[in-house]
């Protein structure tokens, strides 16, 4: 990643009639970056991608590509290429012709297009299929052709619209590494759209979490997982316990809170928090553990309700005394040293330092 800005989105807005698909959004994507737009369907991520590609008009605001304003350029004049969700490989052309298409349309001679397409097919290891039609290839192979086709004209930025969503799980996981590898090799900025948080967390340099047409949080994988800014991000990324708490006092940048049933908890204070305000606290289940006795750190008394075996973990549901229910995940390793609490057993839920995170909205 360099300091050069590849794509600069400034207060871009997209409206369809009365409906606002994208609220004013500003983003700077660096050259060489693997940047992901993550969010549930309808959050505006694909709309933003299509605005960058030129398929959707920009209602308000600007989009710059390496310093040049591009929002008025038609798609075929933008040095940006897209890998489409369903690949959109031209069914009447061979694989080679598909990959040559963009280079030819740039006005380059056929020989050059052919050479370039050959290289790209080499890169995605599909040279032997050059003369087949797209329908004769498997889904994973088609996906790689789509990638080769979009890379062949040497775009300044590559846009990927949920490119892995049509593949089965195993292939999807393999393709993650391959994509990341190709991004590193080519040094092209990738803007990747997905609703799959695992994909986003494993591949991206930075992630923009979006919801309801708004940017919710921008940061690297650890940032958004460990330090979610709001309820939506905490809830959407990974699994969490969201407890309603009210803030009693703030001492030494620690907020002292209590939740239903009189339980007391402290955690790092965040900005703009008022004494007495009702807020939420996020507690990741894997950062909680159970014991017979309270520990020195934070402990909440409760009763085991149920144990659920989920393979890698054991998920335990605990009902706090006069309070809400919580989920605790215990790794399913080193079993000999761990105690499985039977339902009905009174226990204490303990938390690691810094496990709790206050969320303002």
């Amino acid at each position, binding site marked *: 990643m360099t300091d050069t800005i590849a794509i600069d989105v400034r207060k871009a807005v997209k409206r369809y009639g009365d409906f606002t698909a994208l609220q004013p959004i500003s983003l700077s994507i660096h050259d060489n970056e693997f940047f992901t737009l993550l969010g549930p369907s309808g959050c505006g991520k694909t709309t933003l991608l299509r605005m960058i*590609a*030129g*398929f959707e008009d920009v209602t308000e605001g600007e989009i710059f590509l390496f310093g040049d304003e591009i929002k008025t350029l*038609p*798609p*075929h*004049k933008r040095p*940006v*290429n*897209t890998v*489409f*969700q*369903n690949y*959109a*490989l*031209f*069914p*009447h052309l061979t694989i080679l012709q598909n990959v040559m*298409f*963009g280079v030819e*349309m*740039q006005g380059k001679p056929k020989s050059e297009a052919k050479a370039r397409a050959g290289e790209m097919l080499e890169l995605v290891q599909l040279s032997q299929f050059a003369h087949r039609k797209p*329908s004769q290839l498997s889904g994973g192979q088609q996906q790689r052709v789509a990638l080769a*086709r*979009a890379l062949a*004209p040497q775009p300044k930025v590559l846009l990927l619209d949920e490119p892995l969503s049509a593949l089965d799980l195993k292939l999807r996981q393999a393709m993650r590494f391959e994509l990341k590898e190709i991004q590193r090799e080519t040094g092209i900025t990738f803007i990747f759209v997905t609703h799959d948080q695992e994909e986003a967390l494993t591949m991206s340099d930075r992630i923009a979490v979006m919801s309801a047409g708004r940017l919710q949080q921008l940061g690297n994988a650890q940032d958004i997982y460990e330090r979610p800014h709001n309820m939506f991000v905490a809830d959407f990324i990974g699994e969490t316990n969201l407890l309603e708490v009210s803030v009693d006092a703030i001492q030494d940048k620690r907020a002292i809170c209590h939740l239903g049933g009189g339980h007391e908890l402290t955690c790092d204070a965040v900005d703009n928090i008022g004494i007495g305000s009702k807020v939420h606290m996020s507690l990741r289940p894997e950062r909680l553990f159970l014991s017979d006795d309270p520990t020195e750190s934070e402990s909440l008394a409760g009763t085991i309700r149920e144990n659920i075996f989920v393979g890698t973990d054991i998920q335990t549901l605990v009902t706090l005394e006069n309070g809400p229910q919580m989920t605790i995940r215990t790794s399913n390793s080193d079993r000999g040293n761990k105690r499985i609490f039977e339902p009905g057993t009174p226990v204490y839920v303990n938390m690691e330092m810094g496990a709790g995170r206050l969320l303002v909205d």
Partner: protein
Amino acid sequence: MASSKNDVRHYTGFFPITVLCLVILYAPLLVVTIYSLNDSNSITNWEGISFRWYVDVFTGPESDKFKTAAWNSFTIALMASVMATTIATLAATAMVRGGSFRGRGLSLGLISLPLMVPEIVTAVATLIFFSMIDFTRGYLTILVAHTAFCIPFAYLPISARMQGIDDNFEQAAMDLYASKRQAFTKILLPLMAPGIVSGLLLAFIVSLDDFIITNFVKGAGVETLPTAIFGSVKQGIKPNIMAISTMLLGFSIVLVTISFLISKSDNTK
């Protein structure tokens, strides 16, 4: 047919009715084909197989009339169907790829107008039109009328086909530096080809088939095959008519079969 009487889909008696339906549909065509091979001057008595009436069509006393009529029919059908298909392809592009716009419903109504108005009414209206502008009725008036009423027949398969093509393909082309025009000619048109060909064949057959409108707008002296055959049949069915009919029948079946086979080949998958 159905393996089990317990199958809820199976209704006893439906199969025989289907067979009856096919018999009614094919018997007349079969009978005419067989009797066109009759080596007799009468259409009633069977006197063995011969091709004499086929020879008669090309060399007999009426051969010049039918040759001219056939020439008119085929050239009109060819030109009318090509023009109608071109117009329909452009219209379908606007209707299917033009977004939603005011007047879309009106345009669709206008395009399908020739399908909604009974043929005899269109025939009367066209006759009145040409007589009012004092245009001499003949070859040209037939051609124009055929072009107009063939448009919806060409439009239907073409627009159906276009609706089946994901617009991602054109977007991908434009993303890869193709202009709109290039995306149309290099991507959309090749993908549309089967729809366009079946639209063309349909329009061709419809034009070749038409009797009523042609009968009204043809004027004196210009005949197409259907009007020539009709004129001849008014004096009674003659063996040479059966030979012509059989040839035309075979021709239509070949065209429709080609159209069917093309529509089955789907190059978008």
